[in-house]
């Protein structure tokens, strides 16, 4: 080590020993902060010079945070050795370092390295698989996520991939998944995330899977697209299934569609149903409720 630098460290160490614990902490954190700064500064150094320094740090005893920064610096390099190193960490690293390396592959965006992610996904645990999906998300690689979703045999894996597709607004791929794999709660959640009214309406009208249909109807109320009120009203009128009707009513309630609830109230000849609809209007704090009550008191209804 450089003599001058050594001397500085000795002085710093002496000072730290004689100081309060808090000062020790500051000194240690300053040192690490300087290391982080030095690492980030390497982005401005020619890659062939910077790469060995980054690799040396990755192989050393530095903190996890420092190694994360080192992986980030690697991800910023347009050098085949940097991509190879990232891939190596993604394949054989352990714990956080492996997860970070996988994400950094997404940041790096090198197609040849991204091509190795399916293999890492297939052999990885839950955290690794999640990191692979995130890497695809960061790299905006819809095809990678779609392939995982199509090939998923585990429900959780499928759900996670579908959610990432939703975040990526991959409407076409989500529609293909519905056709290939059928309706599912995962798709309903995806359509909520991607604000896809059209697909939600299709699922809400699809009675092939009653549980999913109920989920979709409720979601339609939450998302409240331009046709939501009409669709929910249609479903309520057309269905004989109690759960479906209840979900449609909840959708109207969530979407604050008092006028439709009033329409159902007026059209109903079932006293129990009328009572429930009126109760809903009251809960919605709608002026329409007062209108109905006034009419009832006047003997109109």
């Amino acid at each position, binding site marked *: 080590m*450089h003599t001058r*630098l050594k001397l500085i460290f000795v002085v710093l160490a002496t000072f730290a020993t004689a100081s309060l614990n808090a000062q020790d902490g500051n000194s240690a954190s300053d040192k690490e902060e*300087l290391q982080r*700064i*030095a690492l*980030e500064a390497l982005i401005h150094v020619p890659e062939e*010079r910077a790469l060995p*320094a980054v690799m040396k*740090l990755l192989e050393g005893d530095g903190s996890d945070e420092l190694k994360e920064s080192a992986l980030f610096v690697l991800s910023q390099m347009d050098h085949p050795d940097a991509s190879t190193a990232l891939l190596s960490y993604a394949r054989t690293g352990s714990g956080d370092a492996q997860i970070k390396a996988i994400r950094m592959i997404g940041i790096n965006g090198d197609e040849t390295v991204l091509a190795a992610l399916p293999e890492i996904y297939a052999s990885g645990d839950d955290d690794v698989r999640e990191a692979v999906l995130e890497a695809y998300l960061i790299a905006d690689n819809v095809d990678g996520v779609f392939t995982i979703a199509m090939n998923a045999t585990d429900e959780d894996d499928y759900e996670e991939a579908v959610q990432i597709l939703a975040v990526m607004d991959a409407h076409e791929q989500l529609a293909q998944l519905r056709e290939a794999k059928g309706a599912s709660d995962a798709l309903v959640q995806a359509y909520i995330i991607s604000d896809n009214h059209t697909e939600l309406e299709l699922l809400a009208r699809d009675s092939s899977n009653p549980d999913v249909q109920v989920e979709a109807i409720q979601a339609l109320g939450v998302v409240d697209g331009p046709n939501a009120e009409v669709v929910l009203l249609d479903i309520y009128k057309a269905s004989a299934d109690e759960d479906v009707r209840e979900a449609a009513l909840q959708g109207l309630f969530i979407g604050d569609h008092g006028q439709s609830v009033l329409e159902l109230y007026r059209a109903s000849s079932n006293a129990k149903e009328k009572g429930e609809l009126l109760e809903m209007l009251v809960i919605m704090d709608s002026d329409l409720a007062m209108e109905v009550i006034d009419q009832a008191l006047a003997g109109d209804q």
Partner: protein
Amino acid sequence: MARLNRIASLVLVVLLAAAGAGSEIRAAEMLNLVDDGWYTWRVASVSEFEEDQFYVLVKSGEPRKIEIVGHWCSDRKHSGAVDLGLLETDVSIDWLQQYAGKRSDLGSDALAAMSRHAGGRALTILIDIVESDAHMDVREEAVFSMANSGSEAAFNYIDRLLMAD
């Protein structure tokens, strides 16, 4: 009055240039950039380029901005700038040192300009800032200036900083 000062500066430059001793202004001279306008000078560079050129804008008697003409910096030329010619690195460093490390754009400019000088003195000053300045952002600027300088010695220092244990 300002015109007289400007003429005086120009005369000083001409006299210094005429004084010979190569064409460099000696370390004993201190730059005195008081008149408003652009000034420029060159120094031996630490990088692969033989020389770097600096432009300094003075307004209301104070330097406001330093631009570096090198392989990675601004290539703007300011016509009408007072050309101080090739300076001895110490002269340039002495002037820049007044501002290097100040928490301002000018301070950052000065650090960057300082890092471009050939010889070990500029690096020693930058290392001192990295290791002892009270403000971490200034220390960070100094490290980044070193990284940008293209200097092997600066890189070696960054490498040591990185591996400090």
